[in-house]
């Protein structure tokens, strides 16, 4: 029996509901990516033709016409965008150098969405009435979560789309 060395640990289920983390506000991310620089708001509304062009160039669908953009004095852009994955909603910022290359990508906030296929929704009933042997306090902020790797593919695609947006609409 391969399980004979394993010992059971009382289970402490501490969180129900989606996790959300905020890393940086729009003001903070400007200073993180372009420290000391002056940024001027320059929001963009893309035309249908531009959207078509961006989608062709990047191979990524453009979800919004409006783009939050700031022009950096001395060259460069800061773009703030959102991507929706199967499990997550991510707001992120991309800093572009004066030549249009990526200077930095920062995640601003991350929210889980309800996309999971729950295999056995009844599993949690087994814990009803059990108390935790763990000293981890139940109402403390959940900050350190380990789990299967969540793909960053949507952020990567978003950056690709923003680079095409730069080429089509900002250059």
């Amino acid at each position, binding site marked *: 029996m391969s399980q004979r060395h*394993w010992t059971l640990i009382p289970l402490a289920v501490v969180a129900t509901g989606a996790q959300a983390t905020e890393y940086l506000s729009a003001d903070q991310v400007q200073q993180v990516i372009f420290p000391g620089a002056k940024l001027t708001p320059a929001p963009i509304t893309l035309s249908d033709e531009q959207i078509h062009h961006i989608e062709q160039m990047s191979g990524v669908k453009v979800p919004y016409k409006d783009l939050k953009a700031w022009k950096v004095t001395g060259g460069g852009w800061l773009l703030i965008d959102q991507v929706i994955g199967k499990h997550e909603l991510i707001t992120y910022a991309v800093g572009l150098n004066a030549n249009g290359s990526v200077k930095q990508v920062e*995640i601003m906030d991350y929210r889980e969405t309800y996309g999971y296929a729950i295999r056995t929704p009844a599993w949690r009933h087994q814990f009803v009435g059990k108390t935790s042997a763990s000293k981890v306090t139940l109402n403390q902020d959940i900050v350190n979560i380990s789990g299967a790797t969540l793909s960053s593919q949507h952020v990567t695609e978003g950056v690709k789309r923003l680079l095409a947006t730069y080429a089509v609409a900002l250059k």
Partner: protein
Amino acid sequence: MPSPSNSLRAARPYLGTLVEISIDADLDVAQLQTAVNAAFSAVARVHQLMSFHDPDSDVSRINRTPAGIPIQIDPATYEVLGCAQRLSQRSQGAFDLTIAKVLVAQGFLPEVDPLPEIALASYRDLALLDAHQVLWQRSGRIDLGGIAKGYAVDCAIDVLQQHGIPHALVNAGGDLRCIGRPQPIHIRHPDDPQQLVAVGWLCDGALATSAGYYAQQPDLQSVAQQMINPIVDPQQQRCLAWQSSISVVAARCMMADALTKVVRLWLDDAAPDRLAQLLADLDAQALLLDQRGLASLGSSDCLRV
């Protein structure tokens, strides 16, 4: 008088996931930002060297070089290959980097340059030579997806320590390590990843988790098309289904990351003692979370309940 400590938390996309760094130190915010930037640079460097997708990475150069030709690689990549090879030997091939062709065949990895011959190489066929050179004795393809994230976390922690950061946590998509203040750790339940299970406090150590809930897909090579995950049984040369969540606690995140694959393969093993022995030899502890609950094998000083 000690100055009040400051903290900083940031996340960037690397290694196909989100890498999060949290630090706390008696330094000003600009110094914290410098340390975090340097740590992310270390992660970015691992990403650049060890990406399967980037044609200029060490991994891609190794994968397209035919047998018999020495390949000069970065010392960092060489270090990871060395660690992987030692674990392959100790686990009798349960951990094996040369499983990339199975992941490509199943669509978990993109098709790159086709190999000139049918590659059946195992870890034994990639020779580590002197002066950071490697050589295929028989052509093969490697993927460092099962170990590079852990290594990147270790590199980031090293850099933060060099910057005088006493308290830090680096989390690369669930593979995490902390220094300084103990950190409460939670694992997602594989049956409902929104439910979190407290496993205890991590103290100057690493914990990595592998589970299937984010990455399952139908088996492209069977008629039944049952759901499989990007974990390969090197002996059988096929992807497995991964219903449970497996975590490993170890001093270094590279070892924790790599060991999750060995634990998975040896869970149903006919020789139950060898997993316990391997974990004991490596001062590692395994945690198994599934419908039956949470179970532990071995013990590590890095985890306190």
